[in-house]
């Protein structure tokens, strides 16, 4: 009897432990030599009326269409989207790439009204909005299907805003890119990587016999970029800059398609050293994102792959012929697994916790990004998915694997729970995706660049919690948007951390503006900024419901 009681008690403890939220860690304030700033504050707009508790879907004036009704091979890979304030009017604009047509610039005129402008730039994959030349204005950079990246310089002249220019010394084709200050000189550098399978298919022998592509670091030096080839070959669908070795410096992550393992480099002395920090990685990595999902001050890394979210037999049967066709023997010691991975840092390195936290299976997942969609202080996850390919899915109508985008709510206890009631389950075939507050009302909206269907804007009408938006300006440097800066909002009960980045998800660009959501009852006490050069600025008691522009003096 006594033994039985003990056993029941032990099991109860075990079960209770599963549901307990992790203890909130004491997150250390950002520290470094002080840097003076001045702060401008603008009140955010009132939440939408009525608060419907869902996201309202709006079609946008752009469709990434394939040359044939049903995509063949890499036509199905689609294109990205980027968000940024291109005309400095305070409203975030949207640029949608198009893999087989003209890119579209949607000028945000406020209240979710957009004026579409077709850019004379065709066949683009990724898009980033960054201040390439350090003149204080955001420029547009595209990667292209079969050529080197293209650069649209922002002249600041409303009559002729963008002029095409060359990125000096950038000649190799690239599919994915990531921008940041990679060598600590306060100028913007970038990494670009190729998708060799597409180049080989399109160019055949001329690609095989030519100089090839691979992974390049382009370091800014005066007016030019200095290329350094890190790898001769890659099948990159995505790239990210993420601190792998906790030295507060960005390292390079390349997410490869097929069975090509992902590649990682850390900065070492004046060069780059390859490393393998993970015991398990995604197999066909399609996007990376990072975020402080536990509010511990330690960002995790998320990578998307292909795994059905629905375990019903009808769905599994749609996947099975394709999976059987694609499966090939896995070499011993290969760390790749066919599902999303969530690399969580710990005392002994990174551990994949995707399954344990409920984010391992989100369908044929192109873009996966963290964002606090309900302003409760915890980063949620949204994934755009679906696939169209005539041969791979010749047994499905229109060669399409139709899936619903997945919204997963962070329950604050370390787990993510499907949130179909948010109305984000679009069944269009999503590719690039970017998340930002497009109507300036303090909550995050979502833009998805779909394939063979109009792009969509999902307007956030959840109306939860409170928020604070932060724009950084660093006029004294060439990194005018302070890419790579860390921003920490401290309230009486929690510390929320964000990184200023230019890219996230699949082929897509984020605005440099960071957004904090937090419960309405919490009072922000301090906002800390660690600039890319290590200096730290602080703003006392920022007002909720405002957008702060913090300019370094």
């Amino acid at each position, binding site marked *: 009897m006594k033994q039985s009681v003990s056993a029941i008690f032990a099991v109860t403890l075990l079960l209770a432990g599963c549901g307990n939220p992790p203890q909130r860690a004491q997150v250390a304030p950002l520290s470094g030599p002080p840097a003076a700033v001045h702060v401008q504050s603008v009140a955010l707009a009132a939440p939408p009326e009525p608060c419907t508790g869902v996201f309202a879907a709006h079609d946008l004036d752009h469709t990434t269409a394939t040359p044939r009704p049903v995509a063949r091979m890499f036509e199905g890979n689609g294109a990205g989207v980027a968000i940024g304030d291109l005309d400095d009017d305070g409203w975030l604009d949207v640029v949608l790439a198009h893999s087989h047509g003209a890119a579209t610039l949607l000028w945000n005129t406020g209240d979710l009204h957009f004026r579409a402008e077709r850019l004379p730039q065709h066949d683009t994959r990724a898009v980033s909005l960054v201040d390439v030349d350090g003149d204080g204005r955001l420029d547009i950079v595209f990667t292209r299907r079969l050529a080197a990246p293209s650069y649209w310089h922002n002249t600041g002249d409303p009559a002729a805003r963008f002029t095409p220019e060359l990125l000096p010394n950038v000649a190799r084709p690239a599919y994915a890119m990531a921008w940041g200050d990679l060598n600590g000189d306060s100028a913007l550098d970038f990494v670009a990587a190729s998708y060799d399978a597409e180049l080989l298919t399109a160019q055949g022998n001329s690609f095989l016999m030519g100089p090839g592509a691979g992974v390049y670091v382009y370091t800014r030096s005066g007016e030019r970029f200095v290329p350094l080839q890190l790898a001769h070959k890659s099948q990159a669908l995505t790239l990210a800059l993420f601190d792998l070795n906790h030295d507060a410096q960005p390292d390079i992550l390349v997410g490869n398609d097929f069975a090509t393992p992902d590649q990682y480099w850390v900065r070492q002395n004046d060069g780059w050293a390859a490393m393998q920090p993970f015991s398990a990685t995604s197999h066909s990595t399609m996007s990376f994102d990072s975020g402080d999902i536990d509010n511990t001050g330690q960002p995790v890394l998320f990578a998307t792959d292909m795994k059905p979210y629905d*375990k019903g*037999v009808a769905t599994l049967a749609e996947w*099975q*012929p394709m999976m059987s066709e694609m*499966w090939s*023997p896995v*070499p011993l010691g290969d760390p790749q697994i066919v599902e999303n991975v969530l690399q969580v840092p710990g005392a002994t390195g990174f551990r994949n916790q995707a399954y344990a936290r409920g984010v391992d299976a989100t369908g044929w997942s192109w873009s996966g990004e963290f964002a606090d969609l309900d302003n409760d202080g915890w980063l949620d996850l949204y994934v755009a998915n679906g696939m169209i390919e005539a041969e791979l899915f010749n047994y499905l109508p229109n060669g399409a694997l139709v899936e619903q985008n997945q919204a997963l709510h962070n329950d604050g206890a370390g787990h993510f729970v499907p949130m179909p009631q948010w109305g984000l389950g679009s069944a269009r075939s999503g590719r690039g995706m970017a998340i930002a507050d497009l109507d300036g009302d303090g909550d995050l909206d979502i833009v998805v660049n779909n394939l063979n269907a109009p792009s969509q804007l999902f307007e956030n009408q959840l109306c939860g919690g409170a928020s604070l938006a932060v724009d950084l300006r660093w006029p004294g440097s060439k990194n005018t948007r302070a890419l790579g800066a860390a921003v920490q909002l401290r309230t009486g009960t929690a510390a929320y951390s964000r990184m200023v980045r230019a890219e996230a998800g699949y082929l897509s660009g984020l605005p440099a503006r960071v957004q904090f959501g937090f419960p309405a009852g919490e009072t922000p006490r301090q906002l800390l900024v660690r600039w890319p050069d290590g200096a730290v600025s602080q703003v006392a008691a920022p007002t909720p419901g405002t957008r702060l522009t913090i300019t370094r003096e």
Partner: protein
Amino acid sequence: MAAHALPARSPRFPILALLHPRKRSWLVLAALLLALGIGTLGVRVWGWPLWWAAALGLGLLLVPGALKWRDDLRRHGRVIMVLSILLAAQGFHTIEHTAQLIQYHILKWPPFASSGLISAANAEWVHFVWNWLVVALIMYLVRGGMRGMWVWLLLAWAFAHACEHSYMMLRYLEMSSELQRLGFPQLSAQGLPGIFGRDGWLARSPATQGTFLCRLPGVTTAPRIDVHFWWNVGEIALLLPAAHSFLRTHITLQLTIDSRQP
């Protein structure tokens, strides 16, 4: 010279005593060697699928097995003969699960291909039929007098195991039908998760999302192959003490010595 029988006594290891092939040992060895030889030739030279070789091996071993079980029947009666069959078959079944474990974890085969030796024919049918057969055999043994705590636990465990296989069988048949509808009747629908384990019903059901039930270590996190390896380990672990206590009181070791009269 006359043989004098000593009083019968219980053997120290009654399961080993029961399973010992005795005079059939050479036949067992010969069947095993023959199976290995023909099986290797079949797979390597004639391109047989692995399960053909495994089936041939089992078929050859069945010959000495049948003779040995006939001996058991004569010596101990029908109930103990059934127990002898169950013990031997469970032993072979453990080999099957170990093979699956090796295929999945060491050779890194995908779940649908990690179906063991004989189950490659059809893992779902093999395990479904086998597990309900185990339940039926245990019930027969209970009826024949094998009782006690270990037996009841074994029966409950085997029944639960068979129920999970029924769920998987249902999913397998549904999936096969879906694949047929899509034009892939030849594709294997084997290896779908069951109620327990990684991606199983308990882990993925909308009813359990956000609760502790969907992330119970092992119960909802282990791959199907591991889950069923442990189902089987549990079955063996309960069968052995159940058989031991039953056999200890129901079989005797006949020791004979030459008793020379002066």
